[in-house]
């Protein structure tokens, strides 16, 4: 038996994750060709690397099909109800920084805060006959945030990509999305609210609380955590 480690299967997230483990004496890599999603692990025994889409890692952790996984805090909190009962944060990896923000058209000079957004939502609904639309894929996080702040008269519309373009396309009036530099927002004539981000996210190593573990698995897990300097 061995424990399973889930890592994003492509791009900078994968490379940086490999670097982070490498710097701690655990070599991760693809097995065989670049197109293969099987992985290899050197430097520690009893650990199996599984490459998968970053967005699937929270679900796999919650189901206990992998013991450890690297993914963004944003995805874990969006996808898992009571996330802290299902996974434990072992380490923030120091890359993949991104803030979940709510942004409005830059020319809305009257809107700086959630307080303004709420007032504008009321006026918008009166003028247009429907609730102000916010495009996002982070439905739970944004809804909870807006409820907590007491914002009303808005609706969330689903946008799984190119979210910043929705305002210009008139399918939404505002957006809620992940941003790291704000470059895409500016290019699309958008600006974040000044209340601060809904969530600050970064790549994080999570442990599944409910993954089945026999004695050998537990030993392998302890050895890996030890090796990574997280004990």
């Amino acid at each position, binding site marked *: 038996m061995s424990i399973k480690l889930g890592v994003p299967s492509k791009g900078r997230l994968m490379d940086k994750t490999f670097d982070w483990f490498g710097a701690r004496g655990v070599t991760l890599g693809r097995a065989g060709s670049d197109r293969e999603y099987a992985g290899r692990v050197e430097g520690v025994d009893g650990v199996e690397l599984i490459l998968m889409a970053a967005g699937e890692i929270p679900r796999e952790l919650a189901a206990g099909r992998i013991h450890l996984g690297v993914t963004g805090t944003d995805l874990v909190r969006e996808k898992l*109800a*009571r996330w802290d009962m299902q996974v434990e944060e072992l380490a923030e990896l120091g890359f993949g920084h991104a803030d979940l923000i709510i942004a409005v*058209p*830059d*020319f*809305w*000079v*009257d809107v*700086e805060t959630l*307080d303004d957004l*709420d*007032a*504008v939502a*009321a*006026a*918008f609904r009166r*003028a*247009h006959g429907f*609730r*102000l639309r916010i495009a996002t894929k982070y*439905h*739970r996080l944004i*809804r*909870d945030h*807006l*409820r907590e*702040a*007491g*914002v*009303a*008269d*808005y*609706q*969330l519309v689903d946008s799984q990509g190119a979210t910043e373009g929705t*305002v*210009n396309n*008139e399918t*939404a*009036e505002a957006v809620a999305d992940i941003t790291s530099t704000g470059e895409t927002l*500016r290019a*699309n*004539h*958008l*600006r974040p609210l000044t209340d601060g981000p809904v969530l600050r996210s970064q790549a994080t190593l999570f442990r599944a609380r409910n993954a089945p573990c026999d004695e050998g698995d537990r030993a392998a897990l302890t050895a890996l955590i030890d090796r990574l300097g997280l004990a």
Partner: protein
Amino acid sequence: MAAGERPAFAAIPDARAAARAEAARLSARFQDAGAVPVETAVLQPAATLLDLYGEDIRARAYVTSDALRGEQMLRPDFTVPVVQMHMADGAEPARYCYAGEVFRRQEEDEDRANEYLQVGFEVFDATRPPDADAEVFALFQSILAPLSLRAATGDISILTAVVAGLQTSDKRKQALMRHIWRPRRFRALLDRYSSTAPLSDSRAALLAAADPFAGTGAEIGLRRRAEVIARLDNLREDAAADPIPTGIVALIDAVLAVREKMPFALERLRDIAVDLPWIGVAIDRLDARATALADRGVDVDALDFEASYGRTHMEYYDGFVFGFYAENRPDLPPVASGGRYDALTRHLGQGRAIPAVGGVIRPGLVLELGGLG
């Protein structure tokens, strides 16, 4: 284990059957009180509920869809469809009862049921609202008497009366009214409207700017420049408005803090009304209701009244509100709850409105607490 509340595999048939039988008994009590039994669809059009409750309902109701009818919600309560049915073709006065499952999405607490039975009683009667309030409450209290529950009561119309009479702009009153059911936002607005602090530097600069749009991005989206300009005008007007005196804010706080047995609550509110004379009519209504309750045998001297009760979880209630709680089981939600919802009938009645009051009992919780014997 609650009957019908948290079904475990083996327990489902018995617990469900017991809860159904309890629901039938409760429904019979309501029919004895003159209610006509009605049925509603389990799948409700999502648009109506979204329009009413806003996006928050998505966190509390299960949403599904098909290509033909679009988004549908698994019935989160009966009140909305029963009001719709009555507004469409009901004769007045009318008394209805119903029994069936409601569905509530649970994302925070696994121990809360996501599917349970509700048995309800609704009165549409314009003749004497305080009497209809008392009729519903007294009926619920007598049915639930064997369980020795604590009754909580309140009245949302006292707070709306406070706001309606404030000497401030209509826009401010409108904003406060909109957030009656969101206490935190209500408080933030009240603080802002009563503040004598100057505007933030950036806001002051914006409102004074010759061209507030200088250096900003392109005009994109459905909200047009004219709407931004109109709001800037509002902000200027608001900045020039007199603050709501702190003395008045203290009186609003005093109203919201009232939490006494009914006779003392009335006395306390009458004292406050010396300085907020425009809430007198709302207090007269409360008084008339107390009298009507006493006439129906409710021990009003022992009845709890809280002026802020029902502000967070009962958003369509706009008058009398009540709930029945098992005091030794703080883990349980209220066994029964209800109130007056005149504004909902106006909203769903497309111009028509009728005074309405009602409530629901959860037979599963009644059984969990030992049943009605």
